[in-house]
């Protein structure tokens, strides 16, 4: 492909400049080394790191995953090496690429979130924070931060206060009205929102009469959730003015285009990587191809073009 024919793909996510709207979704792409043999990480719009917590976390006992119809459940339990080890051991590797590195963070208390955000502030090589508010709030009896508008507001506000980095708040779909949460986190200072995280689900082994996951329930991802994700992204883009990142069941360029058309400024690819390690590249090339075919020279002429009668 000659440069002069390449359509404009740059997008700005609340101050983070991306060369294209294709990102990896947190927790599905390791820390970069795993898929480096398969794709050219330099071609990604952004790389979102596996969720980081203040201290390292072991995660849940196995079984952690089970396949479902057009999807999978996972209960990895947010296993991660912790923010310090990330900075020391993983970031140097990721910094070697020409890609925006966005760190996904989470905690069990608001204080946890603040500490991780503080620790990452000023660290060279980090372009932004994605704040995962789908985690159970230990202090509030396990109700997720993102379930409750007030808590969502508080965590966003407090993280925003301790960082100079743009913050993307990642929303949970397990709520009655996701637009409400999106509005409050916008108000609290979020520079962008990303959605959706996984839907809470379950599967049972009828031979053993036990849940398939050691954790009983897990997060549903993959094409099964795409219709729900797309609907929520569409709803949210109409209610907030910050950029929206679409996530959920994107397997190919066609799926990604649906999200862009309903109004997402960028998209993340999660579970698809497991099926096709080149999924991010295929999506990127497919979007470019579609734009060329349809004479769209800039991605902004595609975003939010849904026609409703």
């Amino acid at each position, binding site marked *: 492909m000659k440069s002069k024919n390449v359509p404009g793909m740059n997008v700005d996510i609340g101050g983070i400049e991306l060369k294209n709207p294709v990102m990896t979704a947190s*927790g*599905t*792409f*390791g820390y970069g080394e*795993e*898929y480096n*043999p*398969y*794709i*050219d990480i*330099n*071609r990604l719009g952004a790389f979102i790191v*596996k969720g980081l917590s203040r201290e*390292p976390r*072991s*995660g*849940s*006992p*196995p*079984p*952690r*995953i*089970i*396949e*479902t*119809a*057009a*999807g*999978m459940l*996972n209960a*990895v339990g947010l*296993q991660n090496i912790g923010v310090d080890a990330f900075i020391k051991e993983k970031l140097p590797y990721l910094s070697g690429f020409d890609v925006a590195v966005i760190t996904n963070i989470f905690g069990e208390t608001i204080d946890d979130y603040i500490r991780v955000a503080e620790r990452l502030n000023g660290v060279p090589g980090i372009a932004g924070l994605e704040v995962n508010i789908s985690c159970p709030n230990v202090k509030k009896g396990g109700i997720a931060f993102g379930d409750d508008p007030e808590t969502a507001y508080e965590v966003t506000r407090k993280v925003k206060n301790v960082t100079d980095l743009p913050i993307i708040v990642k929303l949970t779909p397990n709520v009655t009205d996701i637009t409400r949460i999106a509005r409050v986190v916008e108000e609290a200072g979020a520079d962008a929102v990303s959605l959706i995280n996984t839907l809470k689900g379950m599967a049972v082994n009828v031979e053993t009469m036990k849940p398939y996951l050691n954790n009983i329930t897990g997060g549903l991802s*993959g*094409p099964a959730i795409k219709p729900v994700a797309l609907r929520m992204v569409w709803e949210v883009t109409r209610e907030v003015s910050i950029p929206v990142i679409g996530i959920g069941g994107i397997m190919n360029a066609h799926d990604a285009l649906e999200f862009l058309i309903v109004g997402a400024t960028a998209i993340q690819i999660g*579970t698809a*990587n*497991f*099926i*096709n*390690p*080149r999924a991010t*590249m295929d999506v990127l090339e497919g979007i470019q191809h579609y734009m060329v075919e349809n004479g769209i020279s800039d991605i902004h002429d595609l975003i939010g073009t849904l026609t409703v009668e």
Partner: protein
Amino acid sequence: MTNTIKESKKSIVTARIVDHYEVARNHFLMSLKVPSYFQAAVPGQFVMMRVKGREDPFLPRPFSINFLNSHNTGTIMGILYKVIGKGTTIFSRLKKDDELSVMGPLGNGFNMPPDRKKIALVAGGVGVAPLSFLAEYLKRQTNASAQGIEEIVCFLGASTSQLLLDRGRLADACSKLMISTDDGSDGYHGTVTELFQNHIDSYTDNDSIVFCCGPDPMMTGVAGIVKKYSIPCQVSMEERMACGVGACLGCAVRVKSHGDRPRYMTVCKDGPVFDSKDIIWKQA
């Protein structure tokens, strides 16, 4: 610029079935034409497979490499598998010339320390799949090099005589083949763990090594035996997988740790072959 990098990248390959048949009730051997770089694969490594062009089942399935043959017509990889659920049922209906999407070779294979003279392979059921490959590999190595392997004994167990898989290949590659069946239809009447225990005196902590693959209780049993005698043992572990490369952290296996926090490793990237004493065995 990006293109040149792209070309050198690994990818999922399309592999055509060149042969496929039922070797024993519910057990199939599939031979696939694969790119020549598969020749570098070592025993214990695995591949992730899906039927090409099918979206259901959703996730690829992991299988050990059972053999690799290189002819001038190309490289053929063998997958020996048991039909247990949806994915393997669909695989079992595939015919010659049907195509699969194959990712691999993946993971770390068995590792033969140079100082070991006596090798025991302990195989249960379809767990024999990587061990036949290993037996032939070690035999070739022994023939080719000055490596001091004195004997390879294979303990092969199955529920019944018909399900003693790869018997011929193992008899050829090993110094000795010991058989057990749960129903007594052939060899020792009992489990392969018991059979191995009965011969444990032949092995010592300073010249022997055990390579083991089979169902969980069997591997737990073998791990318990070798621990008692301090004999090194490598086991090929199984867990449900999604990515196969260490990205999803789905295939966790609990390993020993120094602190209080449990510690998990991934079967796909850190394994599937582990030192049996690193694993925290469920019943052990």
